[in-house]
């Protein structure tokens, strides 16, 4: 073990393969925190999680604790969970509603907007002390798109529009499943911890190739109808897409369309069971667009690096170490669609979370992936599936291929290489 050299990522990421070290080396993880999580744009929370003035919740941006609040001007704020006096974590509760945060150590009081309200025995701070300069810090950049809150810990760098890019279309499709055009993340989060590298999650979430093997047990356990999600022939015609910027998708809609029935993405519930939803959607978007939404369903897509639009669920991920990660899940509730939401809760329990029918097997795959990578031969992971048959789709203009092809993984890695190659 000699001197530690900077890592050259272009030697580890190739068009058709990536090196195992990227998942196992703590030095790579440290670089990722610097270059991706502590400077680039990351998903933090959704505005519907803090609907009312004074609402707050705790999150992480990379390894750094933040509080998301709704301030006195009814604005969403992201604040570091660190007192400006001596650095104490001011908020221990995971969520709640408050007028102020009082630091338990010396009693400084901050407003929900982060402004410093009160200092115990203020005279002692001296003449140079300006409360206005001592409010809670926040990320230099924060942007909200249709309720999705993103932040960057770097003052400069890629613009938000450039970062999100065509990922907006994916978020639009999710939100437009609601007759009011709004989603609500009010069902609470299921939280999952496993011993794998964080990158396995965005890779896995839009990997269509693993379904038949990794989720074989569910195919066997459920009747043909319920297992429609895994219908073989649909498999053939569903599509993996590279949306640019590391954003990726599996588009199941071609399969649904071929069957010609709506709501196949929703357990195939009949329209008759959702009369108000159908009516409100047609009212809101017109019959044609409403039909299209109900036929195609919400997106199944990754927004780089840590957000997963999982059809009727929203998920995000928190990297802990090279070999440990947290994944959070919640049903995507649709404003103005109570009929849908009660079903979405039960469907979410079936699909997502440590006790569900799907995610535990994905978590085990990721853990076994991590364990396997301790073996150093072969050195590389193979990413060539579909390289020879991927194509640019004329309707979308996106690099695309069949569901079982690794278009999405290559899309993730090519963007990863670009980001990691920027000097920290």
């Amino acid at each position: 073990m000699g001197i530690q050299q900077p890592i050259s990522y272009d030697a580890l990421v190739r068009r058709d393969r990536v090196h195992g070290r990227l998942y196992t080396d703590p030095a790579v993880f440290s670089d990722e925190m610097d270059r991706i999580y502590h400077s680039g744009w990351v998903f933090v929370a959704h505005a519907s999680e803090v609907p009312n003035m004074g609402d707050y919740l705790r999150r992480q941006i990379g390894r750094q604790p933040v509080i998301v609040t709704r301030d006195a001007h009814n604005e969403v704020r992201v604040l570091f969970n660190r007192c400006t006096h001596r650095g104490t974590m001011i908020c221990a509760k995971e969520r709640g509603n408050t007028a102020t945060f009082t630091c338990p150590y010396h009693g400084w009081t901050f407003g929900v907007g982060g402004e410093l309200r009160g200092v115990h025995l203020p005279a002692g701070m001296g003449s140079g002390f300006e409360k206005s300069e001592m409010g809670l810090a926040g990320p230099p950049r924060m942007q909200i798109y249709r309720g999705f809150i993103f932040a960057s810990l770097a003052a400069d760098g890629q613009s938000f529009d450039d970062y999100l890019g065509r990922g907006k279309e994916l978020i639009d499709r999710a939100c437009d499943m609601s007759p009011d055009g709004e989603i609500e993340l009010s069902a609470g989060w299921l939280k999952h911890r496993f011993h794998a590298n964080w990158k396995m999650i965005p890779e896995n979430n839009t990997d269509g190739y693993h379904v038949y093997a990794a989720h074989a047990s569910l195919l066997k356990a459920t009747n043909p109808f319920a297992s429609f999600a895994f219908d073989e022939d649909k498999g053939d015609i569903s599509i993996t897409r590279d949306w640019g910027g590391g954003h990726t998708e599996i588009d199941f809609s071609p399969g649904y369309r071929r069957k010609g029935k709506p709501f196949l993405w929703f357990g195939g519930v009949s329209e008759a069971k959702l009369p108000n939803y159908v009516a409100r959607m047609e009212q809101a978007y017109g019959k044609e667009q409403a039909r299209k939404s109900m036929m195609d369903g919400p997106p199944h897509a990754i927004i780089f690096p840590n957000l997963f639009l999982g059809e009727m669920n929203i998920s995000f991920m928190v990297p802990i170490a090279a070999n440990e990660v947290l994944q959070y899940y919640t049903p995507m509730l649709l404003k103005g669609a109570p009929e849908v939401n009660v079903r979405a809760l039960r469907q979410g329990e079936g699909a997502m979370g440590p006790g569900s029918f799907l995610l535990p097997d994905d978590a085990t795959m990721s853990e076994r992936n991590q364990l396997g990578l301790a073996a150093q031969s072969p050195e590389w992971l193979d990413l060539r599936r579909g390289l020879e048959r991927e194509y640019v789709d004329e309707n979308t203009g996106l690099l695309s291929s069949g569901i079982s092809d690794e278009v999405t993984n290559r899309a993730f890695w090519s963007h990863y290489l670009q980001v990691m190659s920027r000097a920290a």
Partner: protein
Amino acid sequence: MALPESEMREIEAFLIVEARLADESRYDEWEALWTDDALYWVPRRPDIDPAKEVSHIYDNRQRIGTRIRQLKSGFRHSQTPASPMRRVLSNIEIAPAGAGEYEVAANFMLMELAIQSTRNMNFWGGRIQYRLRRVDGQLRMAVKKIMLIDADEPIANLAFLV
């Protein structure tokens, strides 16, 4: 109020058998303990409203069946091989709930060895509320609500019978 000793022993024995069948992943025998209106519930917090919030597990009788079929499929990778485990049940509180029903509560701790992946020993603990019912003279389980101490924290796979 106080039940006859024999009835308390009978109920305790039922809980112990249910725990053993779960510990040993004896899926069919465990499934057979349920009533038709079964609810197998692992909430994120003890007090949530399942009509508004999501739970780790909220299985009706049909979904319990699916869960068991999945575990028996041979491809439930998150339980292949099944985790060796044992749980201790204690602090049992029993109250008659009329019509041959009982409200029962107990605390538990469970050690689970994740041999299908990390081989880590996972420690689980919390409180369980049961609703038991006498059906054709036999005790059956209508509700099992498992309130994990860390249900609202990031937890490991819960793919075994908890």
